[in-house]
């Protein structure tokens, strides 16, 4: 082979093959676009069907007091978010302050849980001795539901933020720990051996092989943990807090305001979804997608 001829010499490029690759690429892009559109339309139709059913049932059975119509709930959400209330706001601070309180608690609990659960999961997943000591303790604590910790948390930390953050931490710790541990334990030994062959020592091995290979599991754990955090936040705030979306829910119940109850529920769902997309989605992009790792 002529050494002067470059691999990228245009003369060597097969034009028809190139064109067909372009066409295939274009076709693939079109297909993916069509699939995305189809998914969106079907998703929207599903949601529309549920909303219509909800509206119909609420009116047909005269259930406005216990099942307010989606239109009434949407109107209430709009009024609450624009702070332009049609009836008196009975829940102290405005909705943004309540959401911010809940968000801060969720993120604090999540961060503390991640700081403990991820390193511990990796240690337990990689070292048999550690697993034999630690795993039984964690598996014994795991069946205790997060909500069962609330009375104890109030006793230990008093009323307020710390008690709620503690129960959120408890709820988030386990999914994060178990997923990280499973990820660290199930790493393909070939990857670790290859790392060692290239001279990677413990920390380098951890940073370059173990952590990236466990990331898909950790991300899944984070996704489950964040969902659980919002569930626990509401339960904790209902019992041990003066602010937050959970306390709005409780007070709305005392006031028999079903529309406010549903408004709070919808807002929890929206904020939970946004939080998940922002935190886990961003982390996923920066790790899993960048490193092109996936659960095998």
């Amino acid at each position, binding site marked *: 082979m002529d050494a002067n001829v470059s691999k990228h010499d245009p003369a060597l490029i097969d034009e028809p093959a190139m064109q067909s690759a372009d066409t295939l690429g274009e076709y693939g892009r079109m297909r993916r676009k069509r699939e995305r559109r189809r998914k969106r339309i079907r998703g929207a139709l599903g949601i529309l069907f549920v909303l219509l059913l909800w509206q119909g049932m609420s009116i047909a059975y005269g259930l*406005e*007091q216990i099942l307010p119509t989606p239109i009434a709930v949407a109107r209430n959400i709009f009024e609450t978010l624009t702070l332009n209330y049609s*009836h*008196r*706001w*009975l829940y*102290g601070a405005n909705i943004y302050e309540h959401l911010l309180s809940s968000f801060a608690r969720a993120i604090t609990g999540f961060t503390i849980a991640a700081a403990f659960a991820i390193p511990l999961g990796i240690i337990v997943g990689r070292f048999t001795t550690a697993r034999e000591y630690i795993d039984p303790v964690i598996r014994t604590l795991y069946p205790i539901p997060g909500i069962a910790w609330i009375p104890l948390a*109030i*006793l230990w930390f*008093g*009323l307020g933020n710390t008690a709620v953050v503690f129960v959120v931490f408890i709820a988030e710790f386990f999914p994060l720990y178990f997923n990280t541990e499973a990820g660290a334990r199930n790493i393909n030994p070939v990857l670790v051996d290859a790392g060692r062959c290239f001279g990677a020592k413990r920390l380098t091995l951890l940073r370059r092989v173990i952590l990236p290979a466990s990331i898909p599991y950790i991300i899944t754990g984070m996704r489950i943990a964040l969902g659980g955090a919002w569930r626990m936040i509401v339960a904790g705030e209902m*019992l041990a*807090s*003066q602010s937050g979306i959970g*306390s709005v829910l*409780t*007070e709305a*119940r*005392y*006031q*028999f*305001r079903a529309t406010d109850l549903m408004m709070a529920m919808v807002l929890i769902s929206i904020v939970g979804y946004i939080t998940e997309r922002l935190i886990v989605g961003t982390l996923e992009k920066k790790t899993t997608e960048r490193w092109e790792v996936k659960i095998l």
Partner: protein
Amino acid sequence: MAQMTRRQALVTGSALLFAPRLAVAAPTDTVRFGVLYPNLTTVIHEIAKETGAYAKHNLNVVETRFKSGQTVEGVEQLWRGNLEFYMGGAPEVPRLNSRLVESGQPAPLAVVSGANPGHTSLVLSNKLQPKTINDILDKKLKIAVSSPSSVHLAFFRGYLKTELKRPINSIPWQFLKVEGGSMVPALLTGQIDGFLHSEPTTTLAIVEKAGHLFMQAARGDMGPNPPPATFMASRHKFMAEKNDVAKRFMRAIFDANESFKKAPKADMVKIIADWSGQKDDIVEKAYERMNPTTSMTKAQAQKWWDIIGTTMVERGELSPKLKPFPDVFDLSLQPL
């Protein structure tokens, strides 16, 4: 002629003996009654059971128990037709009626009677020893209430407005939501500076030396003749359809009132302690501040409305369309 066996003779004899009684006995009517339990506010029901007042009025009362703080659940069950009567915290019935009136429907529930079994108390930490309420109104205090919608807070709000001419938002107190059972430990551990609640929490705080009784509605500290803090409610539909049963039920409650007044203190202490889940000695110490008798005059109902109801309207909890009579109170069942 066939001979009568001993068994046949016995049955025939019994039938002859009881026939006149069976013929005059009215059928027993079942009344489903929702009560807070264990709780001091509903002791009158236990007294009615123990003294046979329900049986005397041919009533089979099926009780449904709700935990303290679950008045919302009780009122919802009453509204949904799963109960005929409910006894518990006061503001929930007008609140539910208000939601219905706001949507253009008639008020479904009626307050048929009321009570003031434990009275609203303001208990303060031992660190705070003010001479008058004015000494602490401008201090930043953490005061526990069972919920932001608590009847005691509503009453205190009304007292501030009517007696002291000060709206509650003009004082820098922070009202913390704490369950009744956690108030004394919270006061002991310095997490709160005081609480607004009723007996037996007040006596528990005194006995445990967690705090001292600073104000109590029963003593007239929050204005003369305090309005009822506990309501007995029923459904208008039931009251119209089975008016006789509803009236008999209220007569049984009034008989229980009389029994309480006449009975020796020791007997009542035992009943109250059993029903409220408190020790006998606590109930004994709190006895002078307790009165489980249940009855309400039109004047008392009006007073409740003037002090608490109007404050709830101003706060936006109740619709301005709601009228005390007939949207909230219907006292026609009481044998007054």
